[in-house]
């Protein structure tokens, strides 16, 4: 068996099958279980090496598959990305089961994950833009939103593809060094535009809060988790490949500038929002900015470790936040702060989940987001105190937004009694999510072994 069949074709086929499963529990349960199995297989069976199963059977998973004359390759370096993608997918799919969204999230989510994994595996890597675009199109029926946010999402993500493909082909043959400076400069502008659309950084981020306000938040948050992560990996492939890019101080300056503007903008606007969905959107924008700032660090290895290290706390916090809101959803008209007033009285665990997730994404101590943010802040301050100030300003804005959400959720007349309207399954998931945020926040080294090899995916940039 080859790895692309196991981790791309099989999940795609499973997604197609699950689409026809009409029972919510079966769909969610099977999807979560399959995703978990795929993550476990990736963890215990690295590609291109033989493994003895139960002392009887020798199994070897080949890394390469040739399709229509092109190679699709999942090397051992991709192993941990597979574990992360399908592991986080499983958590998300079980969560969908708890909030009754499995039939919408699981089939499309599994197919999107498989396509995004394929985008990492395809050779030449430029074709990833096409696979990412197909994944974007699959998100349309998943989101089921007639608003302008979804339309803008499709348009912006689609516009990225031509820019990136054209730039990639203009740059063919000049991986090692720029021989034609004019050509490289023009290609760099086109490429920059492409990735600005793809990563949705300031000022091309407008669809993020719009979509978060209009579409079902649990599904939106899943996309906010997977797309930026894989987009960033795709961008890192470019940086790793082109020496002129990874050795250019201007490139890192631009990344830092865009990252800091996105961070500061997100921080300021997050605290001014009156809708939890829009707040979530701005927190997501801040996360993209944070990754770009990490990419701009002069020690590339540290930058890569921070980028990868941020994936787990971010995914956990977003999952907990979206799950908590989905639990509250049937009891409120909308996620506007007015409608959410006093929700903590009826859904204390869900309300705690929202606030803890927001605080974690703000980088508050003891929570999962803190250790790496603190590390990034410290490294950045050593390089540029001014940049560190802007990062701090953003964190302050996000922190104020979190405290505002806490105040609104608790704001209720004193005579309303405290009760717990979450179902037992929801309570277990919410408690596990909150516990995980604390555990990773207090013992961040427990996640590190999982991530330590990830920078190996980018052997030139990670040196």
């Amino acid at each position: 068996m080859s790895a692309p069949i196991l981790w791309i074709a099989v999940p795609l086929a499973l997604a197609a099958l699950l689409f026809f499963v009409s029972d919510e529990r079966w769909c969610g349960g099977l999807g979560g279980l399959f995703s978990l199995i795929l993550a476990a297989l990736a963890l215990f069976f690295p590609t291109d090496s033989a493994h003895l199963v139960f002392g009887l059977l020798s199994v070897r998973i080949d890394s390469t598959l040739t399709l229509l004359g092109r190679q699709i390759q999942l090397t051992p370096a991709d192993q941990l990305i597979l574990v992360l993608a399908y592991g986080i997918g499983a958590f998300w799919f079980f969560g969908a089961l708890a909030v009754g969204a499995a039939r919408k999230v699981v089939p499309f989510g599994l197919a999107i994950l498989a396509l995004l994994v394929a985008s990492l595996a395809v050779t030449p890597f430029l074709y990833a833009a096409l696979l990412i675009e197909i994944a974007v199109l699959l998100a349309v029926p998943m989101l089921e939103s007639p608003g302008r946010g979804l339309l803008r999402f499709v348009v912006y993500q689609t516009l990225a593809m031509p820019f990136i493909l054209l730039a990639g082909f203009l740059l063919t043959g000049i991986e090692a060094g720029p021989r034609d400076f004019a050509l490289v400069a023009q290609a760099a502008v086109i490429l920059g535009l492409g990735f600005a659309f793809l990563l949705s950084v300031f000022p091309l981020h407008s669809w993020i809060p719009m979509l978060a306000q209009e579409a079902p938040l649990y599904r939106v948050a899943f996309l906010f988790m997977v797309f930026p992560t894989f987009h960033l990996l795709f961008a890192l492939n470019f940086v790793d490949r082109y020496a002129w890019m990874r050795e250019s101080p201007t490139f890192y300056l631009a990344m830092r500038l865009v990252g800091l503007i996105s961070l500061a903008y997100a921080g300021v606007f997050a605290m001014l929002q009156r809708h939890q969905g829009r707040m979530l959107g701005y927190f997501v924008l801040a996360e993209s900015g944070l990754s770009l700032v990490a990419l701009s660090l002069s020690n590339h290895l540290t930058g890569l470790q921070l980028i990868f290290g941020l994936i787990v706390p971010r995914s956990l916090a977003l999952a907990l936040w979206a799950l908590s809101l989905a639990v509250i959803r049937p009891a409120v008209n909308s996620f506007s702060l007015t409608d959410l007033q006093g929700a903590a009285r009826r859904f204390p665990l869900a309300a705690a989940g929202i606030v803890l997730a927001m605080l974690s994404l703000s980088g508050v101590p003891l929570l999962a987001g803190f250790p790496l943010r603190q590390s990034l802040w410290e490294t950045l301050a050593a390089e540029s105190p001014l940049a560190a100030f802007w990062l701090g300003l953003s964190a302050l804005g996000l922190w104020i937004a979190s405290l505002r959400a806490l105040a609104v959720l608790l704001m209720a007349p004193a005579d309303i009694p405290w009760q717990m309207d979450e179902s037992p399954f929801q309570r277990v998931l919410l408690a596990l999510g909150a516990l995980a945020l604390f555990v990773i926040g207090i013992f961040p080294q427990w996640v590190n072994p999982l991530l330590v090899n990830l920078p190996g995916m980018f052997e030139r940039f990670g040196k």
Partner: protein
Amino acid sequence: MLEIFSWLMLFPLLAASLTLLLTRDWRWQAGGLAAQYLAVFVFTLNHWPLGMAAAQLVTGWMAAAIFGMTRAPAEAERADFRWIFHLFLAALILLMMFSAAIALNDWLAEAGLPLLLGALLLIGMGMLQMGISSHPGRTMLGLLTLLSGFETLFAPLENSILVAALLAVITLGLALAAAYLLQLQTETP
């Protein structure tokens, strides 16, 4: 011989993209989209094998059919004199793209000027359509037009079957997404 066809194809292409821009009747829009894909077929035939170019043509026509079928009940735009302004904008785009095509010809000489002109015309008209309306049908039509222009521009650069297949999937996917969005809009009170 094909070069002459490419030059000749520029006129129906311009007519088709203007039709798409100005008309509100779904029949004309579906027809215009189909005509655009026919022009793209002729342009790409210079660089791609017949089979690949034909597959692209069929995909484009399928997209036009999907689009046309869904648009019938969903179109609800007002008819007024905005078309004069749109025509003026189209003329500006035409001028801009003509000068851009000449500049681009230095980079991509092997593509040929008619292909570059056609591709940039489609890209420009697609962007114009996306810019003038927030109606999902109009926006997605613009996106399809823009992408067909990009496919034309990309043909001399890449003749991989996998890329052609993926681009075909994207074209169909966009048409289906457009149909889905229009349907959702119709259902929403």
